[in-house]
């Protein structure tokens, strides 16, 4: 393979989270799918098809409709053109976080992404999320995302003693926790993050964002354990802010991770290694 071909292959792999040969594709505008093509504009939709790391782009003509979402487009392909297309969705209203895909090079929640906002000259290119193993077509295996979440111990630990002082919405720690609480576990930040791509030890933005909400939650009984866990991975964040750029619920995991770095720094200084863990 020539150097140039290798480069274009790796770039394609980066964008779609998949590698493999790219087939130059001419869209079948004449394909009959039961629609009156004379009145409806067609979208040229390239979709990554394949199992695991092997696959290629395939092209579909999909009628463009008002207020159509990218998920509508994928559903159209599966229901009317090729029933073998694998993809994932559930709520269709931006709550479950299962419909994330790479759309024109950027990870997005497809059920809340309007075609009119993201298509380029009537073209869409849809591939699975980056940084996660592809099962088939547009469906990725989310297990590594949640396993890292688990390994980062980013879960609520109830305080063994009742919290006497009521938690007030206005107190600074609660505000910091609230700022990161609306995560829908979509893994869009995980797919966008270069640190995740570069470093298998890095827990990823979503898990660390969750840790930061727990560190700020007075009802949680293991803040120290959370900071200990954060200390093994939060410094691997390079603050590129890709996560904040793409998060569909407008969270800013980079800010959360900066908070963790600060607290880990303080905790480590307060506790020299020769004193051991209390």
């Amino acid at each position, binding site marked *: 393979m020539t150097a140039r071909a290798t480069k274009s292959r790796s770039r394609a792999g980066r964008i779609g989270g998949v590698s493999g040969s790219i087939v130059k594709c001419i869209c079948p505008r004449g394909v009959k799918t039961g629609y009156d093509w004379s009145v409806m504009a067609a979208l040229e939709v390239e979709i990554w098809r394949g199992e695991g790391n092997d696959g290629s782009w395939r092209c579909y003509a999909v009628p463009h409709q008002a207020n159509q979402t990218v998920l509508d487009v994928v559903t159209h392909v599966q229901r009317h053109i090729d029933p073998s297309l694998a993809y994932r969705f559930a709520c269709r209203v931006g709550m479950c976080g299962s419909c994330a895909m790479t759309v024109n090079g950027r990870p997005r929640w497809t059920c809340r992404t309007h075609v009119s906002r993201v298509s380029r000259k009537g073209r869409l290119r849809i591939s699975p999320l980056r940084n996660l193993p592809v099962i088939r077509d547009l469906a990725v295996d989310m297990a590594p995302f949640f396993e890292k979440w688990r390994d980062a111990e980013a879960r609520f630990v109830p305080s063994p003693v009742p919290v006497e002082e009521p938690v007030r919405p206005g107190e600074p720690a609660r505000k910091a926790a609230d700022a990161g609480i609306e995560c829908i576990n979509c893994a869009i930040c995980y797919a966008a993050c270069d640190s995740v791509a*570069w*470093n298998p*030890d890095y827990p990823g933005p979503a898990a660390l964002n969750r840790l930061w909400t727990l560190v700020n939650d007075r009802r949680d009984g293991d803040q120290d354990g959370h900071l*200990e866990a954060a*200390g*093994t*991975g939060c*410094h*691997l964040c390079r603050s590129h802010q890709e996560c904040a750029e793409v998060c569909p619920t407008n969270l800013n995991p980079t800010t959360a991770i900066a908070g963790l*770095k600060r607290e*880990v*720094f303080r*905790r*480590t*200084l307060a506790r020299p*290694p020769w004193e051991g*863990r209390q």
Partner: protein
Amino acid sequence: MKEAWLFTVQRLSALVLAPLVLLHLGVILYAVRDGLSAEEILARTQGSQLWGVVYGLFVFAAAIHAPIGLRAVLREWVGWRGAGLDIAMGLFGLLLLALGLRALAAVL
């Protein structure tokens, strides 16, 4: 715990280095204003406790800071991990320390 410590120590050494690097750059600009000569440098540094302390601190902070950063780069870009990397970086730090102190001793 080890990672948290390396992270913390690197931040602390950065705190020391930040003003010293600025001072160092300032001294470079000042020193070359009318040509650079060994006599001029030695006239400034020889027998000076202040420069000895400043550059001594600089050398120690750099010898701590650089290997930790290089370790992170190697882990991320080359995938080198484990005790071998830690030993290599420890040796690299010692090398920086030795070179730095040798240079310092030569001008004091």
